[in-house]
């Protein structure tokens, strides 16, 4: 039995918005792999909840009329990994979310919950940052879309207005077209562990596959929120694919990231592995894209 004051079950997105307006104190409950555990811990005990878990309309991956990849916010990690659209266009996202928790957690955990709880260690977050995802929220004033860089505000705080719920995550065609990505999670255990630091890189090579047309790199646990490394990206874009450039790119990330000391790992370790991960992930991406170093 959970210590829940009241549970309101939404029957549609509109119904969820209405319930959140009627009960301003209520918190949103999606898959519950964080929220239900926090009720047990006492942190969220005795509160009111609006459950959106049964809204199947928020599940599944499609390509919309603007050729965006549209991921319903309640799509579970396991379904993202298995999805043919994800595998074809943005396989790195499927690989990244396949490193969350264990199999049963991946069956219940949702990508919407993973981003809305605003933690920097979320395995999906660095990849979504690196692919310029767009977050779609639905609320009393209708639907609005926000680029992911404006979605994360500070640790555990995201750009969601009262009575709004996140309904989808979109990856625009310009973002996924001809791109190849790789995610590295550094953690102490192989399963059921949170990332010490995570790094997601993707590249689009020039026609002749000799230089980098566009490189994007996102980090989890390198700052209080998931971040990109703009200086490193600015350095490498347009450069030839050489060993020296890749190494310089990796070193430059230190100008952009700001990891902290925590009980999981020290700042110096996180800085060190951030550089190593950037280099390894970029090399892997070049190989996937058919380039030669």
């Amino acid at each position, binding site marked *: 039995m959970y210590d829940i004051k009241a549970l309101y079950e939404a029957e549609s997105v509109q119904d969820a918005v209405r319930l959140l307006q009627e009960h301003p104190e209520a918190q949103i409950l999606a898959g519950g792999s964080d929220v239900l*555990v926090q009720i047990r811990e006492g942190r969220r005990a005795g509160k009111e909840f609006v459950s959106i*878990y049964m809204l199947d309309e928020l599940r599944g991956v499609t390509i919309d009329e603007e050729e965006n990849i549209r991921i319903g916010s309640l799509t579970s990690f396991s379904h993202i990994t298995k999805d043919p659209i994800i595998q074809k266009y943005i396989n790195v996202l499927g690989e990244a979310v396949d490193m969350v928790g264990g199999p*049963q*957690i991946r069956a*219940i955990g949702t990508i919407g919950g993973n981003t809305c709880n605003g933690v920097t260690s979320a395995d999906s977050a660095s990849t979504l940052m690196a692919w310029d995802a767009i977050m779609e929220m639905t609320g009393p004033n209708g639907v609005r879309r926000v680029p992911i860089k404006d979605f994360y505000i500070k640790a555990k705080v995201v750009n969601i207005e009262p009575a709004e719920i996140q309904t989808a995550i979109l990856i625009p065609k310009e973002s996924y077209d001809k791109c190849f990505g790789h995610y590295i999670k550094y953690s102490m255990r192989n399963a059921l562990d949170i990332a010490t630091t995570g790094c997601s890189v993707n590249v689009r090579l020039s026609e002749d596959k000799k230089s980098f047309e566009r490189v994007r790199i996102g980090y989890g646990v390198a700052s209080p929120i998931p971040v990109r490394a703009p200086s490193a990206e600015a350095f490498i874009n347009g450069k030839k694919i050489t060993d020296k450039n890749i190494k310089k790119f990796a070193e430059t990330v230190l100008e952009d990231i700001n990891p902290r000391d925590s009980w999981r790992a020290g700042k110096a370790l996180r800085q060190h592995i951030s550089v190593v991960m950037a280099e390894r992930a970029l090399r892997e991406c070049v190989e996937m894209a058919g380039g030669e170093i």
Partner: protein
Amino acid sequence: MAKQYKVVHCTVNGKEIEQVVDVRESLTDMLRNDLHLTSVKKGCEVGECGACTVIINGEGFNSCIYLAVWAEGKEIWTLEGLTGPGGELSDIQQAFVDEGAIQCGFCTPGFIMTSWEIVNSGKEYTDDELRKALSGHLCRCTGYENIFRAVKKTMLRHLGKFEEAELVNSQGITEYPDPMPFK
């Protein structure tokens, strides 16, 4: 706040049921207390140990972090649903017995449900994939080797690879004789 109750309709172990639940109940609470399916163990209750694992619509879930009201319309299987009409063990259960994959037995029902999903998937998992698929369960007695072997052998038998199942050694590694007679 008045107590909130709800009627849940779902299929449990192949039987359609209608159950009144308190909305604060977890699925573990419903299966154990209301339906008396006590193979579903209460371990950590926060989704870490896997002892409460049940199969919902073909996929393994920790029933301790799943609200009972979410069971509406779902098809759920617990260990009780695996045995035959006279209580005969299914092959995956028998393999756990044969391989000594049980000591205290607390993790066993959950492990067997995940294993059941694996062996019925029709897919041949590599050793690494098998370990990953089983990684959501904690066993403090056996050291996992016997469990791994039980699952691997049963998976191979389900795929019709009976001779290969016999070549799985005590460490769970398939030892092919030289020269390899089949494959």
